[in-house]
């Protein structure tokens, strides 16, 4: 069957299935199980209102449990196992982890990930804040914001092609088509560089892609936060003779600190999971490996599920502090 047709049928079946479930289950509850009639009408109504939330929640809980909660546990278990002959998995304790930590490629991935975590959120938030502040009162600010925000819609893979064009190197005696080498030669560089093959620095060239994508996100949120600052505080500062820089760093930034933290952590999480950029641009060669790509390598190239799962658990471990912090804040807000 043609996949498009299959897709269409699935949409119809899926959507009508969902609607059918909600309609049917509520109908069942109202008309059959606890009808609003007969001798126990009061008890029936209160009982069905006890059950109804769970009818509404059931598909979501099922999907969340199966696709997010269960895998965390299953991956944890897998990371302590090794697949022996005949696909039999045996418990090996921390062996996968010790083996992994002994691998230079893993340590390289860890080192790079730390580098990414330090640079990308800081740079993206910084640029975002700068863009938000500069465009704030500009007449064409919205157009400017729109353009800076645009990379968000571009896939990491598309961005990889876009930046490959920038980093491209041609032989010395012909015209450079990569703008980076063009500028490098223009400002006194001697030979064109293969930017993505220079260890250590090449990670920064990959980070530039993510920063380029994430800055718009930071800008949009921080720009809304800047707008939310009470005018009086700024007017008071102006009257007191503060200069624009003082107003920005001493009055505005402290007031939006909460939002800056949210943006920072959100980009941190995106950075931790970065896979596509490295996969498409260098595939971890020339010392650019990161955890997510290392894990993919272990899972689907080396076919080592134990170590792949262990690598995934490391990513989870790195995310956990942010997870706890988010949950803590959400609970505080609800009270």
């Amino acid at each position, binding site marked *: 069957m043609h996949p*498009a047709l299959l897709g269409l049928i699935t949409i119809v079946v899926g959507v009508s299935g969902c609607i059918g479930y909600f309609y049917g289950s509520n109908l069942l509850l109202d008309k059959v199980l606890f009808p609003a009639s007969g001798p126990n009408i009061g008890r029936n109504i209160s009982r069905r209102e006890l059950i109804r939330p769970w009818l509404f929640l059931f598909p*979501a809980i099922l999907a969340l449990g199966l*696709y997010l909660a*269960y*895998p965390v546990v*299953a991956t944890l278990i897998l990371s302590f196992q090794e697949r022996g002959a005949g696909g039999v998995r045996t418990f090996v304790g921390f062996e996968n982890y010790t083996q992994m930590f002994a691998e230079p490629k893993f340590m390289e991935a860890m080192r790079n990930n730390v580098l990414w975590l330090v640079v990308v959120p800081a740079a993206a938030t910084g640029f975002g804040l700068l863009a938000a502040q500069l465009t704030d009162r500009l007449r064409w600010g919205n157009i400017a914001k729109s353009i800076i925000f645009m990379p968000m819609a*571009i896939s990491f893979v598309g961005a990889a092609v876009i930046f490959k064009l920038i980093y491209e190197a041609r032989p010395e005696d012909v015209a450079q088509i990569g703008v980076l080498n063009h500028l490098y030669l223009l400002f006194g560089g001697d030979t064109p560089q293969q930017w993505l093959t220079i260890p250590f620095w090449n990670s920064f060239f990959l980070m530039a892609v993510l920063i380029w994508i994430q800055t718009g996100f930071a800008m949009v949120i921080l720009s*809304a936060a800047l707008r939310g600052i009470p005018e009086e505080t700024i007017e008071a500062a102006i009257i007191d003779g503060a200069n624009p820089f003082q107003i920005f760093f001493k009055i505005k930034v402290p007031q939006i600190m909460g939002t800056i933290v949210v943006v920072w952590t959100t980009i941190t999480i995106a950075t931790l999971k970065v896979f596509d950029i490295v996969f498409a641009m260098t595939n971890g060669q020339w010392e650019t490996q990161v955890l997510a790509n290392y894990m993919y390598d272990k899972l689907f190239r080396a076919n080592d599920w134990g170590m792949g799962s262990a690598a995934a658990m490391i*990513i989870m471990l790195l995310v956990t502090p*942010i997870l706890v912090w988010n949950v803590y804040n959400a609970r505080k807000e609800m009270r």
Partner: protein
Amino acid sequence: MDGLSGKKPAVVWLLNISVVVLVALWLFPTLGLFVSSFRTSEQITSSGWWASLFPAEQTLQLRALDPDENRFETSAGVFVVEGNVLEGDYAEVAIDRWGTSSRAPDSYATGDTADLGDGENMTLNADGTYVWQGNGEQISGRGQRLFIIATIPPEFTTNNYRTVLFTEGNSEDMAKAFFNTLTVVIPATIIPILIAAFAAYALAWMDFPGRALLIATVVGLLVVPLQLALIPLLQFHNAIGIGKGYLGVWMAHTGFGLPLAIYLLRNYMVGLPRDIIENARVDGATEPQIFTKIILPLSFPALASFAIFQFLWTWNDLLVALVFLIDSSGETTVMTKQIVELLGTRGGDWEILATSAFVSIAVPLLVFFLMQKYLVRGLLAGSVK
């Protein structure tokens, strides 16, 4: 800031210039891909795309017409070949200088006559017409070489798009990837919205024990890296017989998209006016009625913003498709995978790569610009609250 910067023109100028620089910096990479997709492979590899926007000075090496076929005798023993070197490919070229040897291509201005020795001479005019004159021996063999320093206007072609979209072989792959991507994206966008809308309503407006715990769980699941889910779910899909395929990828995208969907929609629904819902309850509306008749229509902006998020995310996704969809037959490839493949195998074919990549990002960009309002609103609801 109004009071400060509004009065000093220098500050306003500085502000405008810095924003222009910032915008240019952010637009430049995408523009490069866009412009490159309209250049021939020869153009892409011979000069930077930024140069193609302006007329460029180039040295062309051309040849006069074959004298044995085109010469005619004006007077006894004097032969002439006339023609136009710019005919055809170079119709819009403007000649700056020209010459007859590769060492000195800038010897003559247009309209000058070059003395080629022994009475042989060549005259080249600005419009490309030339007169080549000499005796029968000189005007024979191969046509006289002409070196022209010329200003060539920007030139673009849509041929790449024709190749990628409509040529046998390429187009099948691209069209297949395009439709496969759509097949993944549409159900993977609609289904989580439906499921999440109901759950979000229950979490926002129904009272039941454990509600706070559930909300906290959703917030926690928001950041769980989907890398964790790959193996257990692949095992699960194999165990229930789905294997790799559309059903699996739809379910995976639904599961991964749900936390954000529920979170966004709940945040929005909580903000709806309490009066409306309570009045409806007093008037005897049942919960399903309140949900379908009041909550859903009012939540349209939030539904739209999640739909855009999920659309962009599933369209641009590579990892989930690689793991849950694309099998060894390659029949179910998606756009992102197709581009990665091109990057690997045809990294040198810039025109194909650039054009395919632009085709793949065109749809999300279109959605982005049309629905930006909702996207921004969704981002704000998801992060600031």
